[in-house]
């Protein structure tokens, strides 16, 4: 237990103080982990529920937020695609080519057939083959 803590301390220098805190209550490790999970779960749920927490009952969501919610999906889909391709965008050397070719496969096959599953299978197959071949 202590050796594990020491090695962590060495690798994660910035968290030294926090590791020391845990070492002090090593017997309470389970409690720490469970509390940490509860904390993360509550925060995540609260964030997802935020618009519902603010606008409920008499307090209707204002018109400008309703309109925003209606146009957001298209914009968020673009953001999520960038998120998936972030490694290719920031660094061209990390399998950018397989990602670009696979995205093109998905786009072109979908424009052609409009078959969701076909395009997903084709794109993923192209990607999985290319990362092994290139």
């Amino acid at each position, binding site marked *: 237990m202590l050796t594990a803590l020491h090695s962590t301390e060495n690798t994660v220098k910035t968290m030294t103080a926090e590791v020391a805190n845990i070492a002090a209550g090593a017997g309470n490790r389970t409690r720490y982990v469970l509390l940490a999970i509860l904390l993360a779960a509550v925060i995540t749920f609260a964030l997802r529920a935020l618009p519902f927490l603010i606008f409920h009952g008499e307090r209707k969501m204002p018109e400008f*937020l309703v309109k925003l*919610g209606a146009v957001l999906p*298209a914009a968020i889909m673009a953001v999520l695609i960038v*998120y*998936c391709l972030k490694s290719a965008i920031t660094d061209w050397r990390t399998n950018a080519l397989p990602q670009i070719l696979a995205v093109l496969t998905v*786009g072109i096959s979908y424009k052609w057939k409009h078959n969701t*599953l076909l395009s997903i299978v084709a794109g*993923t197959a192209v990607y999985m083959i290319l990362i092994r071949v290139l």
Partner: protein
Amino acid sequence: MQNTNTSQRKNPTHEQNKNILKEAFVKSIPILCSYLFVSMAYGIMMEEAGFHWYYSLLVSMSVYTGAFQFVFVTLLSSGASFLTIALTAFLMNSRQSFYALTFVDEFAKMGKRKLYMIHTMTDETYAVNCSLTEQGETKRGLMFFVALFSRCYWMIGAVLGGVLGQLLPFDMEGIDFCMTALFVIIFIDQWEKAQSHFPALIGLTAAVVCLLIVGPDYFLLPSLIITSAVLMLWNCRKERDQNADGIA
């Protein structure tokens, strides 16, 4: 109309239920491919950090987010402070506040299922929900079962990863690309039915610019804030123009 919907919800025929289940499963297949393997990787990572499968299951069940769960492993095993954990969870997951905006009305009609829908709102379920063309109670049933199935895939994967670990004989690296593929397909769908391409383009531009400036770890939140701000201004201007046209 409202009455018919409610009665349908209370007494849906067996056939209708079966069709909704089947359709929800088909819609969730891309999520299945992605979640099962990504959460298996998560279960393996947890096991390597010294947390057995029941911890992976507990986190997957209660927290249920993608990227943050991976960072959470590092936080837990290094014994990070509660403040660090809270801040990281806040920064990495606040983007999901935006997702609820699209579905406030829809969820409000879902009764007891509403809390479950809020809890299961991930990037992927949001994307699939946005792609549904069905209406009314059928749509809400589909949304619920897609959410339910997806969460099951995620939990099953996490447990499998923890229990089987690296015993898996096959190399599935790259299978998670199916999620990227799904996002691209939904993007094309949205593009084709949109009256204006401005929202899609502003999302794309904001995300790329933020990625290049902020870096890959924290660019999602600033991208969404900028996108939302620009879209709100755009909505206002559109309304003003329409009003001006009306007067003229």
